[in-house]
């Protein structure tokens, strides 16, 4: 590989790894591949450059705003590529890049109304591409087609419904009427003109299936995103004959191309139906698809069966050709029907509908006559009777003969022809589970002769106003799921914020507002307050009373708080040592909220008391969230705490309120001999630095001493200092009341007492 190519390739793989690098890599490679590069730059590098630009500006991995900024810097390079480099690969990629860039520059110019320099460059690129669209080889022209599609997309108005507007949808709507560089009307006119050019391609020469399918495949987006022109496009597609090639000699290349064009048309229309099942055009689409299918079969079958037949009759018999021969005297083709005075057009090959069977003069206006025009049967009668009376008997006889002979000819051919229509639906089923032509509808279509085979009457009226389908209401379950998702996302964001903050260490101390920035602490404050306060006071004071409805309601209203709390708990537990501060501030919030709630409950109780209704309220004091969650947190931590984790001291000392239940967890922890010392250390610390809980500590320590033999020595050491009375009592009552505590543990007691005895002796 070329040495500089290798470097370029390295840069590219960096950007592939992370799209954010594009904004630094693009300026980095431009000197090598762009206008500044020497003229001697090898074609390989130019190719690489064009490919890179096409890939870069198409990449979904970086922000459109950044793309728009950098797009301006590559315009000159693209222009250079298009104007001077004579290489198909470079041109193709440059046009692709231009197609991605055009909307970006367009939007930039809309907002920066004086930037004529870049707009001129873009216009030069555009006119270069539009020139190529007629003359270049098809491989390049298809890229031009896509470019033109983008131009049409941004230069036609999008939907007006503001509910459906997409901020990233760049359309004519963005352009102000008084823009100095972009005259609204000429942009609009150009858009329409270019759309006509696109549509012209599918009506043109089909020997280039490449272009035709390229256009068809680019129309889907236009129909979907620009309802204003959807009707025009559909009308054009309805008038389009995908089987034009059936007239040409049926080489295997033509056959592949014809099938491909038919299939592509079908995909496009099926996609239109699927994306908008309420489209008023859908009926017509179904009809078109079915006709196309039948004729496609006919054309292919015909060629399969009759390949050795002379070319000329095939031409004359072809239905699509016949449509174009309206001016020709009827009966010019070799007639399959007996020649009567009024010459009768032959039936088209392949399956024939009843309407076709009875239509003797397909060219006449009467073929398209629809009897359903007459809404009033009376009126119909008034016309019909005189018409029937005036019929020339001879002509009628001829006509009947003609139809009869047609019918006979058909029924002779029936053994061959009959299976074809019968197998059609089967064949469809096998490949088209998503789209099944309904049989009933097929039959109706065939019989009623509502439409001529080729041209569908298209009303000029615009599409009906689009109605957004009603969003089905979320189920209880979905609400739960989405709620949980939101909470989870909040915590994911927290993790990111935490990472960013690692460098920052300064703390605001007291002199700051809670939740004033976007940092981790702010989010923690918000989340914990959301959990504690959002639903505070909402739970039913009558919770204890059995009432299905009320209970359900209360559950629903509190679920969110509980979810956030669960989230907080999980978040803390993921790295509890580092996130202890979060746990503490959360518990503080819980405690604060509980206190406030208790206060207001007390006030309420007072008020109720006046009404003589005190008893119930008092018995239902608000339940303590603090207690519940502090215990849950401790239970989780106690399980994993190591005997070296002195940080537990901090947690216990900073928890806003301690009670017997909480300290019992410490006692529990001490059941693991390794962690006895840690437990004692916690209790000691609390005794020393948290005087209000001294009594509690001593109580727990006593219990520890009594219940846990292995902890006895350590516990005794501190009890001896803080409450020797207990030890004394125990020593006295060894034989007597001491057994009350541990009757079941006689042996252990003996040895433990022995140990204590030694200690006491010391």
């Amino acid at each position, binding site marked *: *590989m070329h040495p500089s190519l290798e470097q370029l390739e390295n840069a590219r*793989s960096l950007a*592939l*790894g992370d799209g954010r690098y594009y904004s630094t890599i693009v300026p980095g490679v431009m000197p090598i591949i762009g206008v500044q590069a020497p003229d001697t730059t090898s*074609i390989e590098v130019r*190719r690489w450059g064009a490919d890179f630009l*096409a*890939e870069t500006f*198409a990449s*979904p*991995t970086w922000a459109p705003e950044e793309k728009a900024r950098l797009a301006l810097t590559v315009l000159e390079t693209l222009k250079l590529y298009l104007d001077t480099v*004579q*290489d*198909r*690969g470079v041109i193709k990629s440059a046009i*692709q890049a231009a*197609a*991605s860039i055009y909307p970006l520059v367009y939007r930039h110019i809309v907002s920066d109304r004086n930037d004529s320099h870049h707009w001129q460059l873009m216009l030069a690129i555009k006119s270069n591409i539009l020139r190529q669209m007629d003359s*270049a*080889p*098809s*491989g*390049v022209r*298809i*890229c031009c087609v*896509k*470019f033109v*599609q*983008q131009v049409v997309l941004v230069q036609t108005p999008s939907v007006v419904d503001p509910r459906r507007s997409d901020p990233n949808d760049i359309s004519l709507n963005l352009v102000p009427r008084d823009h100095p560089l972009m005259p609204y009307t000429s942009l609009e006119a150009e858009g329409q003109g270019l759309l006509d050019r696109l549509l012209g391609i599918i009506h043109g020469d089909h020997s*280039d*299936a*490449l272009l035709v*399918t*390229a256009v*068809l*495949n*680019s129309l*889907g*987006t236009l129909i*979907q*995103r620009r309802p204003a022109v959807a009707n025009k496009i559909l009308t054009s597609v309805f008038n389009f004959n995908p089987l034009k090639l059936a007239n040409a000699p049926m*080489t*295997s*290349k033509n*056959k*592949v*191309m014809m*099938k*491909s064009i038919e*299939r*592509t048309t*079908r*995909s*496009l229309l*099926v*996609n239109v139906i*699927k994306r908008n099942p309420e489209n008023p055009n859908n009926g017509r689409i179904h009809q078109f698809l079915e006709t196309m299918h039948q004729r496609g079969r006919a054309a292919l079958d015909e060629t399969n069966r009759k390949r050795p037949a002379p070319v000329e009759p095939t031409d004359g018999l072809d239905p699509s050709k016949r449509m174009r021969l309206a001016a020709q005297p009827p009966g010019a083709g070799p007639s399959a029907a007996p020649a009567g005075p009024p010459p009768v057009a032959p039936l088209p090959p392949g399956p024939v509908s009843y309407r076709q069977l009875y239509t003797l003069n397909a060219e006449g206006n009467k073929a398209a006559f629809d009897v359903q025009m007459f809404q009033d049967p009376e009126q119909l009668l008034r016309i019909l009777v005189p018409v029937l009376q005036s019929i020339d008997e001879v002509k009628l006889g001829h006509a009947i003969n003609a139809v009869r002979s047609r019918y006979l000819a058909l029924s002779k051919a029936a053994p061959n022809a009959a299976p074809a229509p019968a197998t059609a639906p089967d064949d469809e089923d096998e*490949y*088209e589970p*998503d789209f099944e032509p309904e049989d009933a509808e097929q039959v109706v279509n065939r019989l009623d002769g509502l439409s001529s085979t080729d041209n569908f009457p298209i009303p000029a009226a615009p599409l009906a106003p689009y109605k957004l389908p009603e969003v089905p209401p979320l189920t209880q379950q979905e609400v739960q799921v989405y709620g949980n998702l939101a909470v989870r996302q909040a915590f994911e964001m927290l993790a990111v914020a935490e990472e960013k903050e690692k460098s920052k260490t300064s703390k605001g101390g007291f002199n700051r507002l809670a939740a004033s920035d976007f940092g981790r602490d702010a989010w923690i404050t918000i989340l914990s307050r959301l959990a504690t306060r959002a639903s505070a006071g909402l739970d039913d004071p009558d919770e204890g009373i059995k009432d299905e409805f009320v209970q359900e309601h209360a559950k629903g209203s509190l679920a969110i708080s509980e979810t956030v709390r669960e989230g907080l708990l999980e978040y803390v537990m993921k790295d509890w040592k580092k996130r202890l501060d979060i746990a503490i501030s959360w518990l503080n919030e819980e405690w604060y909220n509980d206190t406030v709630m208790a206060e207001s409950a007390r006030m309420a109780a007072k008020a109720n008391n006046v009404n003589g209704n005190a008893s119930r309220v008092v018995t239902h004091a608000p339940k303590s969230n603090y207690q519940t969650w502090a215990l849950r947190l401790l239970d989780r931590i106690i399980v994993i705490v190591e005997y070296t984790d002195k940080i537990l001291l901090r947690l216990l000392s900073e928890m806003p309120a301690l009670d017997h239940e909480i300290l019992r967890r410490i006692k529990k922890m001490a059941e693991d001999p390794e962690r006895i010392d840690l437990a004692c250390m916690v209790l000691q610390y609390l005794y020393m630095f948290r005087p209000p809980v001294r009594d509690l500590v001593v109580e727990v320590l006593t219990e520890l001493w009594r219940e846990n033999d292995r902890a006895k020595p350590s516990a005794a050491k501190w009890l001896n200092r803080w409450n020797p009375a207990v030890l004394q009592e125990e020593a006295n009552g060894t034989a007597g009341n001491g057994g009350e505590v541990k009757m079941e543990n006689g042996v252990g007691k003996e040895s433990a007492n022995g140990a204590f005895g030694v200690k006491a002796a010391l």
Partner: protein
Amino acid sequence: MSADPRLRSRAQQQQQAAAVPPPPPPPMEPQPQPMGMDGANDAPAGQKDAVVDRFNLKFCTVCASNQNRSMEAHLQLASANLPTISFGTGSLVRLPGPSVDEPNVYRFNSTTYEAIHNELAQQNTQLYTANGLLNMLGRNLTIKRFPERFQDWVPGKPRLDHEGDKGAHGTEAGVVDVVITCEERCFDAVLDDLHNKGGKLNRPVHVFNVDIRDNHQEALVGGKAILDLALSLNEAAGKERDIHGDNGWDRGSGSARGGFDERVPEIVAAWQERWPNLPALWSLAWV
């Protein structure tokens, strides 16, 4: 998928069937040219191989479940050094189960071939060895990790996380030049989905359909046919790169001079004559 077993694999698997459950079979040795069990076609693709470091088209093979036909083709293309990725268009991965109305169903994009293999081996080693499923899954897990759904593919999203897949070299940018489907239903699904994706990359992609019946034997033959098509396309694309400068880059006349895209219809036509039993379709779409 029919239960038509791959005869060759049956012979291979018979010894392995004894062990319950068998370990994933050893990776199949890459076979750029699989055994010519059909013997029907002496494809000109026979000895060809895409030359590394030459301009290569990027390919994508698609079938319903990304298990049999697309994976066979994936393996063959990747073994010929063509950058390849593969997808399924179904809503779920469906594999034959103990009876016709009890298929085994898995999610796309997450259930690994290995997990499926292990589950089926546990379910009924005998059955799934006999119908060739275990062998197929064993092959698949050497190609890539899990079946992917076409509709979930985001074109242009880098695929660096698929580095270990066979044929991954060259597909890092997450774009392809050629999509080859194995069934008309998939062809339609691909065109339909590309309409939905909206062609945001403005990049042309040739979509082909090669109609292959869904059984192991046909998949093998179809894989060869797809390889033949792919190599013909790749050769044409390579030739386009060779034409450069004033000597005709912008003159579309003359098929020999014509660029890659223009020549596609005639390449398909020629291919169709070589493989008359695999009806082909083609369309130029946008990713």
